[in-house]
């Protein structure tokens, strides 16, 4: 009765059922293959370290890494902070630098895209700054801001700032003239045309920029925390190197990877919520 294939003739319904079942089986098999391949990889890795093919000073066994991870949840040794502290420090740094980049970069890009004069005023400077890799700013930042949190946040800011500006700018520039004309004939002022049309039209591209910026910010973190630091994930892996502890390095690296993925995921959730009007074709 409640079967959703009841409307189909019996023969067709059966063949569809068979096909659906076959597809399910196939995807289960594919999943199994993936799991097996990862398992074999981890096993070979573990095996190679255990029997000494690989020097454990160079690469720790997977089980060791898991043990170190569990240990680092509560033990600040050997490098001086529990994992939670490192995460909090790094997150704080990224949120300040990245947050500032979004809050300043997006409106700046939007307005540059909309107001021609403003564009001509700002873009020469922007074009010069834009191709300089964020890491190249480290020496100057140290001279200007020392080696504290501010300097690190500043470098992260620079890394995130450029894509925020460029994408917002492009989004506004691409606004179709007909949309602007609709607003104009509906009685909108220049500012209202920006606010009701261009800003909204640009939103999907703004989010692309904000996503790229997040990636940049997070990956610049390690470089920024290689400036003198007493905590942070970048600091953690740096110390791992000095202490010759590959397990610490790898725990730090994996944490950076996982948190980066989580942040990207959260941002894309927000994006889907804000630009849910976008038609995907």
């Amino acid at each position, binding site marked *: 009765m409640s079967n959703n294939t009841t409307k189909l003739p019996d023969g067709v319904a059966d063949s569809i059922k068979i096909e659906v079942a076959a597809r399910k089986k196939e995807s289960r098999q594919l999943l199994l293959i993936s799991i097996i391949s990862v398992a074999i990889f981890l096993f070979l890795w573990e095996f190679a370290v255990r029997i000494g093919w690989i020097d454990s000073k160079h690469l720790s066994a997977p089980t060791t890494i898991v043990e170190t991870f569990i240990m680092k949840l509560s033990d600040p040794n050997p490098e001086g902070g529990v994992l939670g502290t490192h995460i909090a420090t790094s997150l704080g740094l990224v949120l300040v630098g990245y947050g500032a980049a979004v809050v300043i970069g997006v409106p700046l890009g939007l307005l540059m895209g909309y107001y021609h004069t403003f564009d001509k005023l700002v873009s020469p400077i922007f074009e010069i700054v834009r191709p300089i890799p964020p890491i190249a700013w480290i020496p100057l930042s140290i001279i200007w801001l020392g080696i504290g949190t501010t300097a690190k946040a500043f470098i992260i800011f620079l890394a995130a700032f450029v894509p925020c500006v460029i994408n917002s700018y492009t989004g506004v520039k691409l606004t*179709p003239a*007909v*949309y602007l*004309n*609709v*607003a*104009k*004939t*509906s*009685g*909108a002022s220049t500012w*209202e045309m920006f606010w*009701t*049309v261009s800003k*909204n*039209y640009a*939103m999907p591209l703004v989010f692309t920029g904000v996503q790229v910026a997040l990636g940049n910010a997070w990956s610049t973190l390690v470089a920024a925390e290689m400036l003198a630091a007493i905590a942070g994930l970048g600091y953690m892996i740096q110390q791992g190197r000095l202490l010759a502890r590959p397990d610490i390095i790898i725990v730090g690296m994996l944490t950076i990877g996982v948190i980066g993925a989580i942040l990207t995921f959260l941002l894309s959730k927000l994006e889907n919520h804000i*630009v*849910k*009007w*976008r*038609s995907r074709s």
Partner: protein
Amino acid sequence: MDEQRVVQVHLENISKSFVSRKTIFEAVNHVTIDVYKNEFLVLLGPGQCGKTVLLNMVSGLETPTDGKVEFLNSDSTDVGFVFQKTAVFPWKTVMENVELPLELKGVPKEERRKRAQYLIELVGLKGFENALPKQLSGGMKQRVGIARAYCNNPQVLLMDEPFGALDAQTRYQMEEEILRIWEQEKRTVIFVTNNIEEAVYLADRIIVLSKCPATVKEVYDISLPRPRDYVDPEFLRIREAIEANTDLAL
């Protein structure tokens, strides 16, 4: 038209040229037209002849290089514009799209919602108030455009090939609809098309424009009673007469 004709919009010898680095391109050339109050005027012209430019000048989106546009017998120069390309904001719901002109005027939400609701029902979109444009068909989007054009109660409606992008079936349906809407909410309509059949079906009066630069070539009064029938002999006769007299490179 039986009643005395009152001029609502007067186009006085308007021309428009676009100047680029080296060349001057004439799009509209010395056009003089009187548009009468509450008439359904159709401007019929070949593709790329300057029809959109002409409407843009009436709406104030562009200023004529020469001549002037005058609104007579009304203190408002507000126009409602239905655009050639579907121009419904994809990030706004049907309701938000329709109420936009009133929102921009600062009309309180409750009041503008009431007006928008009336118009949404008028154009046959009841039940779609909160739909996003991506959920609508092409014809429904143009209905939104029509409702929005009516929203701040302009005396003049400009329609730039509003059904040009629709399939034939939907197009016939929308032609019927636009007349129903116009009968119910009488306004002065300037409707642009390159389709003779559409022109004869809709118009009180047809002004045929020449190839670029647009000039007025011919004026036809269409006094066929409505609803008109595409295959009525009289309809076909008028249609053929216009066809024989005009060169619409379609």
